[in-house]
């Protein structure tokens, strides 16, 4: 299935800000509004974006109604998820995409928002795995990744070049870019929203997971034949975990052992994840991935 791009944005376009999972600090919402306004866009907060209900921004009903409202609004050209955390999974089966398909728009976010990216790809549209409100608030105006995000929204697609890593597999591949947070992507394994392996260049990142839990997920992808059917693999940043002796090797080493047998291009240490250098990636886009001794080039084919 061909994935379609929503229209790119132009000045004064409306951008909805929602909090579909965890609650967020109001100063970060203000920062996101200021940054989007400085790009000459018109951001607004959905009703419960700054709400709080325990750990979440609102009840399932409240979070659902915000998201549905933003999806349905013809004037909204992009939806920024203020943050991840946990809770997007509650909404996955309850959203109606009828009106979205009449006026598709870009969804922006990462981490727990990965589940919503999978859902949007399932409905046939591309979306933006990219930094959220915190980065738009705390990083300076010249922040590399915020500016890549801005460029993409306005239709200027970047080329990424990243440094060589000793565990890389050399090669050149074309495929559909898909993925995101490993635990969240994995949470949709064998559901209708699971990522198809064929023609996919998969990217993964995670935060605060134990190495053996990551290894178990990679084993799952291996045992179920996902890994052998991929066109390429991008290993992003795995942060806030303890390298213990559980695996007897470091996490990248453990992943490298499991993917040793595949001859498609594989890139380690790509700048995507819970870090400042979190390059926006267009989920569902056709890309060319070229890995050689000089490094890695990722090019969007449009």
């Amino acid at each position, binding site marked *: 299935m061909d994935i379609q791009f929503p229209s790119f944005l132009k000045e004064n376009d409306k951008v909805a800000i929602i909090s579909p999972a965890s609650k967020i600090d109001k100063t970060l919402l203000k920062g996101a509004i200021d940054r989007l306004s400085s790009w000459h866009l018109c951001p607004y907060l959905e009703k419960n974006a700054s709400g709080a209900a325990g750990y979440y921004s609102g009840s399932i009903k409240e979070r659902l109604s915000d998201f549905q409202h933003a999806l349905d609004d013809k004037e909204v050209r992009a939806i920024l998820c203020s943050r991840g955390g946990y809770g997007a999974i509650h909404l996955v089966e309850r959203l109606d995409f009828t009106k979205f398909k009449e006026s598709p728009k870009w969804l922006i976010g990462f981490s727990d928002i990965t589940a919503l990216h999978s859902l949007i790809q399932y409905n046939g549209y591309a979306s933006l795995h990219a930094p959220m409100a915190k980065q738009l608030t705390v990083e300076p105006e010249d922040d590399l990744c915020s500016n890549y995000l801005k460029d993409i929204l306005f239709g200027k697609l970047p080329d990424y070049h990243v440094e060589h890593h000793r565990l890389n597999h050399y090669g050149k591949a074309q495929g559909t870019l898909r993925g995101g947070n490993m635990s969240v992507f994995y949470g949709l*394994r064998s559901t209708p929203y699971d990522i198809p392996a064929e023609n996919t260049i998969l990217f993964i990142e995670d935060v605060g997971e134990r190495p053996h839990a990551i290894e178990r997920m990679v084993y799952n992808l291996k045992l179920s034949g996902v890994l052998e059917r991929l066109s390429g693999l991008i290993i992003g940043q795995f942060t806030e975990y303890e390298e213990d002796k559980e695996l007897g090797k470091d996490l990248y080493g453990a992943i490298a052992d499991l993917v040793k047998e595949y001859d498609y291009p594989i890139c380690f240490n790509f700048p995507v994840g819970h870090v400042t250098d979190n390059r926006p990636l267009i989920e569902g886009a056709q890309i060319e991935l070229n890995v050689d001794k000089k490094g890695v080039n990722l090019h969007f084919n449009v």
Partner: protein
Amino acid sequence: MYKLTINLKQLLIGLTALFILSSCSNCIMKPISKSVSKSCKFPPYLKEGDKVAIISPAGASDSIMLNGAVKCLKDWELSPCFEKYAAGVYNDYSGTTEQRLSDLQKAFDDPDVKAILCSRGGYGVIHLIDKINFTRFNRHPKWLIGYSDITALHSLIQHHSVASIHAPMSEQMAYEPDSDQSLNYLKNILFGKLPSYHITTDINNHPGKATGILRGGNLSVYYGLRGTPYDIPPKGTILFIEDVGEHYHTIERMLYNLKLGGVLENLSGLIIGQFSKIDKKEWMNDKDTYRSIANLLAEYHYPICFGFPVGHVTENYPLIEGAKIEMSINTNGVDIHYLK
């Protein structure tokens, strides 16, 4: 001619629409395995003097646990023996993947071995799962005993249509008294005397009566096999789950996976075991873990039992994976018995 072209066009449009419709209806169907749970073949029961191999297919065991297992099995008039690396240590594992594999394979292949006790779980069984040869095991099937990380081996053995025993391991054998109920149930099963379990009622239970094939184990480990050849077919299955030391949101995410993946709606019954050492965090508020799980399961009408004594606790009733059972839940409690 013009008319014919139109008709052909219409036909083509019609066919395309049909094709799109049929492919759409395919894509909204949940990817349920077409297979239905079938009861597994029971290996022969044990008799006095039978050989029992002790292996450590995942984490390293200590000598107190291993010696305790030997003493317990000897008390049952069995002949336990250690495979080569059962007491080994390699990082957190008992041995390298090759060493653990060779122990397991040797125990599988030995026609004199009538049961295999996994000394403990931990993490590491997944390394062995696609590397084990079943040719000799299928000729001389034997009982595999263990739980927690061993859940992956149970799934593998059920994949080969043989039953196995989800049961306490060496730690319980070393530290619990001779009179320990769960261990005595294990002994009874090994010698062919299948128990019936009665447990007290729980406010979250769904009443009803079901027959089905008993399968499951540790939720994280079972979930680790979703979409692989070793995944559990939901149809005809009475699933049991337990877990230890997970975050509440991780458990909820796994249950959502089973819900969105169509597993839950296709089960014949569900047994919620012990969820111990759960990190609840602030979002739990006043709701307890079971209550939250119950909310997710509210829509299912088959019998569901909460708080079953299976998990990382002393009262860890042995369950025969792959066995056909009847589960009956009413205001008097829960009854489970094996159907021959």
